[in-house]
């Protein structure tokens, strides 16, 4: 087996994650305890759907225009949650999509939420709207014509974040944002009622449904992040004394 150069530490992180994941998941399966920091944004999502129901107005959802990446996986989980709330309260949710390959996945997620709620007859494929490159004006137009009461912008956001948020603010919508794209965090932080910052978007899955897989994953992520924090601290101290062995080791 010919292993590549400079991938040893990389491989170590991957193996360590997988091992920790299976360990923590099995611990939880055997009745282990688990507590997770409260995420306000999840409660805000329910509040938004509740108010939309009261006002008889729809909810708007957008993933942003970013390329298909893992942020969409986190968004799918939250979309399923939002859709199940909407199914429960019979509230309309309009989804704006920029990427074609995400359309069928979105259909599956929402259809599943409606099936699980026993309301598959209320599922409306026409509310899943693919806009391609014209996502932004189409989103602004939709938000203003439908006068949405809630606006969720969760996914790989780019400059469209501020467009959607400020447009929905005109109708006093309750807004929840979430992204790991650092350049857009300022705008969702400034304009939304509650946000998921980076990793919070992913941790929400374990919060919504604490099953062994999700709990195991979040716990394993936590353990490895802690390990990296220790590495950074030790590495900095070592560097201070002119020793860069740790940093070099990581690059191997």
């Amino acid at each position, binding site marked *: 087996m010919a292993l590549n150069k400079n991938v040893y530490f990389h491989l170590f992180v991957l193996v360590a994650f997988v091992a920790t994941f299976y360990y923590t998941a099995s611990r939880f399966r055997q009745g282990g305890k688990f507590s997770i920091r409260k995420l306000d944004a999840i409660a805000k999502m329910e509040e938004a759907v509740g108010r939309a129901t009261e006002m008889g107005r729809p909810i708007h959802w957008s993933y942003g225009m970013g390329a298909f990446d893992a942020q969409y996986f986190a968004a799918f989980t939250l979309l399923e949650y939002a859709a199940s709330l909407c199914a429960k309260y019979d509230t309309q949710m309009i989804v704006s999509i920029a990427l074609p390959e995400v359309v069928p996945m979105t259909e599956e997620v929402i259809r599943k939420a409606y099936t699980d709620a026993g309301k598959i007859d209320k599922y409306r494929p026409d509310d899943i709207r693919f806009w391609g490159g014209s996502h932004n004006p189409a989103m602004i137009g939709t938000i203003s014509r439908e006068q949405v009461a809630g606006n969720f912008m969760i996914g790989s956001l780019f400059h469209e974040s501020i467009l959607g948020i400020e447009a929905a603010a005109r109708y006093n919508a309750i807004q929840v944002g979430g992204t790991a794209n650092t*350049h857009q965090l300022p705008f969702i932080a400034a304009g939304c009622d509650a946000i998921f910052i980076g990793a919070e978007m992913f941790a929400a899955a374990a919060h919504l449904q604490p099953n062994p897989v999700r709990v195991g994953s979040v716990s394993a992520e936590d353990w490895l992040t802690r390990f990296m*924090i220790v590495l950074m601290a030790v590495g900095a101290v070592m*560097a201070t004394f002119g020793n860069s062995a740790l940093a070099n080791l990581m690059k191997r």
Partner: protein
Amino acid sequence: MNETIGIWIGAFLTLGLFSWMYKENAWFRIVENVFVGASLGHLAVTGYQNVMDIAWKPAITGKYIMWLPLIGGFMLFSRWFKKYTWISRVPMGFLVGTTAAVVMNGAIKAQLIEQAAATMMKLTSINNIIFVVLTIAATTYFLFTLQSKQTGPIVNLGKYAMMIAFGATFGQTVMSRISLFTGRMQFLLFQWLKLTPGGG
């Protein structure tokens, strides 16, 4: 002549989009729908060219493996028939799998290892000390299962660092947003209305 018509159309579309800022109106809605059609049409044309160049031409000239993505593509259309929807999940699985794999390889190296290694600075200047402390403090904010009173102040410090970061990025972005607008105004004033700077 063609150019003049084009510039007038461009101005019509530009002002139509800006008109939303006053309120949602018919003009904006016309432009919005022109854009939706145009953008989907453009995507379709380039998408078709991609399919031809990447898959079809190689497939018919002996590179038989390229039939696979073509077949996968056609499998997506099974979504139009309720009974066979499951067939479309096969290419969807492929899309998701390859994407997840790329993320996994990239995230560990670019977002974890390189960033952590770059944080291992010599703690010999005030700036470096502040930098390392703030980075570590803000990272603790993303520990979800850790909830103890002792870590509270560290997490708070980290939150301040993130707020500074958000504010600074916001301020920095204002600059490029104003540039975008002046760019459109330069089109309207100088190309469409043919004014000259200096009030002519």
